[in-house]
């Protein structure tokens, strides 16, 4: 029997007080595709980064093709034949494709010969794998799919025979993802070893030979893909039986709350992100917007939340909202009874250095009940309000004096959701409500959202998780490239159809 391509033994890694990897061992046979799954923060990326020499393990050893190998830095990993495509691409945005490819793998001190050689190699690789990219294009002009190809080419150019891909399909349309898997299979046929990290059980089932499951920094199981099922994997991932469906009564939509007509958004760089959309959300209804990240959903949500200007018309309860200038900020929106659970709680929804009680006022710090006189904040009132919310939403630890960064992701999210839902708004905007949140908190948060709907309020949900869209929404709209591709009722569609819409293939053509 040949030695495993990769063997990790007893790998541990701590980031300060966070134990990201605990005594992890894993072995990957050569010429196979090995999947790794696990919840957010389980430590997948950390483990792979250690293998790639990006981080240094606190303990443990690495064997490549049976030989014990020290990987103090990426140089050593590359020398050992390892290539990695990171979750967040590591490309120099204003360099050309060619420059990015030779960076760190130049021959000799002068650029000209290296560039010429790389151009030649690129043509060969293109022929072999169908990975065509314009070598002279500047990275920032390329789409994410193309950028990912550059990353793969970078690894191949360095003659990697072990390729690690960290969540490669998160940013791809289903069609692009299919193409990626075709390429991976070619590579496998050539005898290369591939490690694939993904959240999508379907991809694991379709593409991998073996799969390892991680939970809270530990490796919980490694199984042959052929001998397992999605249900079993999900259970391994979270540690108990999972019920992915939300119990909810059928919606009874009322009057339109939110009416959007011809909305257009141009971002700071002058790129048009939202290209004229029309959408209505009624009282007592959850409308979900599906789509691959980066197709304008975030911008739509930000416009509604008062975070960026736009053109077009938006009416709330029949009266138009300001879309630019003074009346178009978060304060104005809150005054108009729009609440907003932002997509990124750490960068937007919370101030990580603030106490929990300070965060409970965040955005509502003008609320009269939090004031004492014209200038001062009423901190005592704020703290008692916080204690009430902590209790109701079961935030743990139940201590309002902790700073936000000292809560786990799920509890941080509970603080945000508590703050917004307890306002009892007419319209609730929700972006990625359960990203990085453990399954228990997911159920809780989903229930709160449904409860708000049942109280006759309108909810607009944006999520990249199709499952979440399916289980929460009463109506689904799909966004692609700044356009709404169409609306579907969850009962009358399936993942396949939505996937096509998300890839820009319109309903009629499909």
């Amino acid at each position, binding site marked *: 029997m040949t030695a495993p391509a990769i063997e990790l033994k007893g790998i541990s890694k701590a980031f*300060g*007080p*966070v134990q990201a990897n605990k005594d992890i061992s894993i072995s990957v046979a050569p010429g196979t595709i090995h999947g790794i799954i696990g919840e957010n923060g389980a430590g997948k990326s950390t483990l792979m980064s250690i293998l790639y020499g990006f981080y240094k393990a606190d303990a443990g050893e690495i064997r490549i093709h049976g030989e014990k190998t020290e990987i103090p830095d990426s140089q050593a990993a590359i020398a050992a034949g390892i290539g990695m495509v990171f979750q967040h691409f590591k490309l120099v945005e204003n360099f050309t494709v060619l420059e990015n490819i030779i960076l760190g793998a130049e021959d000799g001190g002068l650029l000209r010969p290296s560039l010429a050689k790389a151009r030649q190699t690129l043509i060969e690789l293109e022929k072999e794998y169908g990975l065509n990219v314009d070598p002279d294009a500047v990275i920032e002009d390329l789409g994410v799919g193309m950028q990912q190809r550059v990353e793969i080419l970078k690894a191949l150019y360095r003659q990697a025979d072990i390729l690690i891909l960290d969540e490669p399909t998160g940013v791809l349309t289903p069609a692009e993802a299919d193409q990626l898997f075709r390429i991976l299979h070619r590579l496998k046929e050539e005898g290369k070893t591939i490690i694939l990290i993904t959240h999508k059980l379907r991809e694991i089932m379709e593409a991998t030979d073996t799969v390892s499951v991680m939970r809270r920094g530990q490796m919980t199981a490694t199984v042959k893909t052929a001998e397992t099922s999605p249900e079993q994997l999900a259970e391994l991932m979270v540690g108990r039986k999972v019920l992915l469906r939300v119990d909810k009564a059928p919606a009874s939509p009322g009057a339109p709350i939110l009416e959007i007509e011809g909305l257009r958004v141009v971002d700071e760089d002058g790129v048009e992100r939202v290209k004229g959309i029309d959408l209505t959300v009624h009282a007592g209804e959850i409308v979900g917007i599906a789509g691959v990240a980066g197709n304008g959903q975030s911008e739509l949500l930000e416009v509604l*939340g*008062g*975070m960026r200007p736009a053109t077009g018309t938006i009416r709330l309860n029949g009266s138009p909202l300001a879309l630019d200038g003074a009346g178009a*900020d*978060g*304060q*104005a*929106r*809150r005054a108009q009874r729009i609440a*907003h659970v*932002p997509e*990124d709680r750490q*960068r*937007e*929804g*919370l*101030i*990580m*250095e*603030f106490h929990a009680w*300070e965060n409970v*006022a*965040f*955005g509502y*710090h*003008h609320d009269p009940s939090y*004031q004492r006189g014209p*200038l*001062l*904040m009423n*901190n005592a009132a704020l703290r008692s309000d916080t204690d009430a919310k902590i209790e109701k939403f079961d935030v743990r630890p139940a201590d309002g004096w902790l*700073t936000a*960064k*000292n809560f786990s992701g799920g509890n941080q999210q509970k603080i945000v959701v508590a703050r917004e839902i307890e306002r009892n708004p007419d319209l609730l905007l929700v972006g990625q409500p359960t990203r990085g949140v453990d399954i228990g908190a997911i159920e809780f948060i989903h229930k709160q959202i449904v409860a708000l709907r049942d109280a006759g309020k309108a909810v607009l949900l944006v999520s990249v998780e199709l499952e979440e869209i399916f289980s929460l929404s009463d109506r689904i709209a799909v966004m692609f490239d700044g356009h709404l591709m169409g609306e579907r009722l969850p009962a009358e569609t399936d993942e396949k159809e939505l996937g096509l819409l998300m890839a820009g293939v319109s309903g009629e053509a499909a």
Partner: protein
Amino acid sequence: MDKMPKWADVVLIPLISLILAAILSALVILGIGEDPWAAVKLMVSGALGSTYGWGYTLYYATNFMFTGLAVAVAFHARLFNIGGEGQAMLGGLGVALVCLYIPWPHWTLALIAACAGAALFGAAWAAIPAYLQARRGSHIVITTIMFNFIAAAVLNYMLVNVMRPQGSMDPASARFPEAVHLPTLHEILAPFGIGFSKAAPANFSLIVAVAACILVWALIWRTRLGYEIRAYGHSETGARYAGISPYRITMIAMLISGGLAGLMAINNVMGEAERLVLNATEGAGFIGIAVALMGRSHPFGVFLAAILFGFLYQGGAELALWTSIPRELIVVIQALVILFTGALDNMVRMPLERLFLRLRKGREA
């Protein structure tokens, strides 16, 4: 989970940094062939050994409280205001205009007007860099440095071509009228039977400075505006989400900052020189940076750090007076303090964090 307790971050790290700076300073003094111990003794007796010394120490400390607070307020909004020097110069101009061209019946009225003038001019000088940062993203560090140079040119022009009295050779304004004279500590304390050196320049501005410390504390930690400033400082995207206008906060924080820096002029121009001279600020705007860093941008920390720097400044002046050690020694000490408390912060923090982590692991085990 935090890597270490808050007290370690707030007290221990600055303290260790300060000790390191002190050790290096001692080595520097040794290096130029002087006795560090004797130098320290001279500095202590010169700065703290008499009411005269205290008078100067507190006079300088007053300057540094204003400029330190200025830097601190801007820091809370994550704006690095290096322009305290220029803003204080312009503040001086404001004070001089108020004192020279308006007849005042009593110093209290004059002081109120001078405060307004100083703050207004200082704030105005901060307004353009603030606007450019907020609207055009021009890096405020560079623009405020440039505005320091421009302020020097403006002051130069005003003193040489406009405010210089007929026939005078000095580039300095006329002397302020007697009516705007601020009571010195000697005059303030005399009614209470406390003797204080008549010659020392510490004056009523000290009380204003202490009041400013308290007001800034209330502003930052008790008011809604302070809440917004801190929120914006911690997270710009967060501020956008919460409907806190980055433009508004940048402008307000910088105007307050510039105003505080400008206020310094009531001490050095109105309280001490009683006329406007070139370079009246003597680098206090820059020392404000060190003061704010040392004080961890907290008004109480700023207060303590200002007194420390006042001591260094007066002690350094005494050294220059009675030994052959040049006054620049304090510039070196100041540099070391900025270096250790500001830039090499992590050199102290990293091992401490590891230590605390190990301690905690030990406790948990």
